[in-house]
């Protein structure tokens, strides 16, 4: 007597195979829905916004009248923001990554630093806004300036840059460090001449992606109180300014339907900026992919 009857196995087989097929299509459908939502989103925004997307739109200041509104102040403001965020966040982020990967011994302090970074990455961006409002805007009295907003954003994307840089540094094989030490190079010489040159493409790619997050981020700036209707360009780090997402937020809240189209046009500008940054990141990644 056999435990498994061939007949019943074969009877079940058809059902199991149908089930297998059916689920495969369901899983595919899920991917399809995700991709479709992206397509719909992009399609909507492009069809809504292109009409207002003129040269005037790029070179005009904000206005109460939709047909005169432009993104000049916001676009230039976003670039000013990067002027602070890029150097600050990259210096701190890469420095931290080098410390953690090359110098940090296994002890309580360093474990704490590591744990802290992964928790910091999970803090909602709006909470960083509260930090910026209290510390930078009020305590250090920087006002609602490029500097205050830039420092806040730098802290927000710091964990992302740290983690990306750590991965890039960790990917440099230890044999490379050994070769350098074996020549009598010091630790710092090895880091500067061997580790960083090999890790820099990965670090840059990660940093640019982090910066593109900062360029699209709105919530912390809302909390800091960045103004929206500005008729001038920032003239220094302590100047007040506005950025693209803030401008879009303001337009999107307005009741007149025309401003929906203006907002869409603003979104297209923002997305083009993001696409440019991401393309640079991808270009760097592909161009300098190292082989060992």
């Amino acid at each position, binding site marked *: 007597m056999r435990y498994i009857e061939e007949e019943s196995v074969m009877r079940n087989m058809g059902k199991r195979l149908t089930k297998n097929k059916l689920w495969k299509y*369901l899983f595919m459908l899920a991917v399809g829905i995700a991709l479709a939502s992206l397509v719909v989103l992009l399609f909507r925004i492009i069809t809504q916004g292109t009409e207002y997307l003129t040269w005037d739109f790029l070179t005009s200041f904000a206005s109460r009248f939709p047909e005169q509104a432009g993104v000049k102040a916001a676009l230039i403001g976003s670039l000013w923001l990067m002027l602070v965020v890029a150097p600050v966040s990259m210096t701190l982020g890469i420095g*931290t990554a080098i410390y*953690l990967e090359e110098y940090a011994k296994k002890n309580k302090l360093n474990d704490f630093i590591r744990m802290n970074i992964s928790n910091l990455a999970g*803090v*909602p961006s*709006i909470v960083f806004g509260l930090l910026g409002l209290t510390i930078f805007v009020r305590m250090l009295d920087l006002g609602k300036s490029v500097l205050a907003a830039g420092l806040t954003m730098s802290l927000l994307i710091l964990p992302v840059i740290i983690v990306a840089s750590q991965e890039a540094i960790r990917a440099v094989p230890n044999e490379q460090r050994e070769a350098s030490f074996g020549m009598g190079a010091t630790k710092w010489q090895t880091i500067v001449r061997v580790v960083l040159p090999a890790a820099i493409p990965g670090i840059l790619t990660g940093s640019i992606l982090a910066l593109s997050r900062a360029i699209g981020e709105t919530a912390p700036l809302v909390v800091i109180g960045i103004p929206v209707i500005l008729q001038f360009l920032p003239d220094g780090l302590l100047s007040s300014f506005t950025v693209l997402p803030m401008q879009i937020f303001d337009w*999107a809240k307005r009741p007149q339907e025309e401003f929906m189209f203006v907002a869409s046009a603003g979104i297209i500008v923002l997305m083009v900026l*993001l696409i440019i940054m991401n393309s640079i990141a991808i270009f760097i990644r592909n161009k300098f992919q190292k082989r060992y």
Partner: protein
Amino acid sequence: MSASNGQSVQAMIEASKNKKGKVLLEKTMPKLLLLTALISVLTTFGIVFTLIFETYEFFTRIPFMEFITGTQWLPFAGDAKYGILPLILGTLKITAIAVVVAVPLGLAAAIYLSEYASDSARRIIKPVLEVLAGIPTIVYGFFALTFVTPVLQMVMPDVKIFNALSPGIVVGIMILPMITSLSEDAMTSVPKSIREGALGLGATKFEVAIRVVLPAALSGIVASIVLAISRAIGETMIVSLAGGSTPTFDANITGSIQTMTAYIVQVSTGDAGYGTTIYYSIYAVGFTLFVFTLIMNLLAQYISKRFREEY
């Protein structure tokens, strides 16, 4: 004529040795780098102390018990009420809707990518999903307000302009790539040999995916969902634009609501002066939000550490 004049390399090395700068650099760089690493710690302290100090000021004016048990949030009323439960409920509604949308879709997509998709399909789909993850939340918010809500209104006439459903769905779309990519990582790290073991017994791909891969990757999958929930709780712009600003304490998801984050935005864009109770209330709400997301993040870390599968 030789440039080195027959001098040996070792002699030249000896001659250029003992540069003060080099020694100094070796000593100071690690300390400087440690300093940069401490900035991230300082940031956490900054966040915690900021929230604690300003929230403390808030609680000198509003009793703590009223804050955490009150079911009315009416800061702008003549007789102001600061019971945070309506804001928490608003946040939970959004989170729940987002989870209902994102978890099945995200997991199904992850299973497809790790178990069924060909390499070339994966190479196309994954970057596209990354694009979805890289879209600014303000854009999602605009999409919720100007597209998803009108579509919902066509299907269900009692959906209001501001409601929980539309931003909830869009937050779901926003966290979907996160669930998919983290879960897929967890599933692809299940060794091939385990799959082959099951396939060799005559199991179908579906049976392998559900009975073998999913249980083996469970801790990573659960951690990804918890992280995504944390992200949904902290999401701000989508709910500010499409969720409304009515802190209600009921089960309705078709009408206007307010989340913790949306309240902070509402106050920030309004003209509540520095030092008013309303001003301090955003810190109390921010603190509550911080606690919620911190618990979620610690939970995710605990799950992925505690239940890590050893292969």
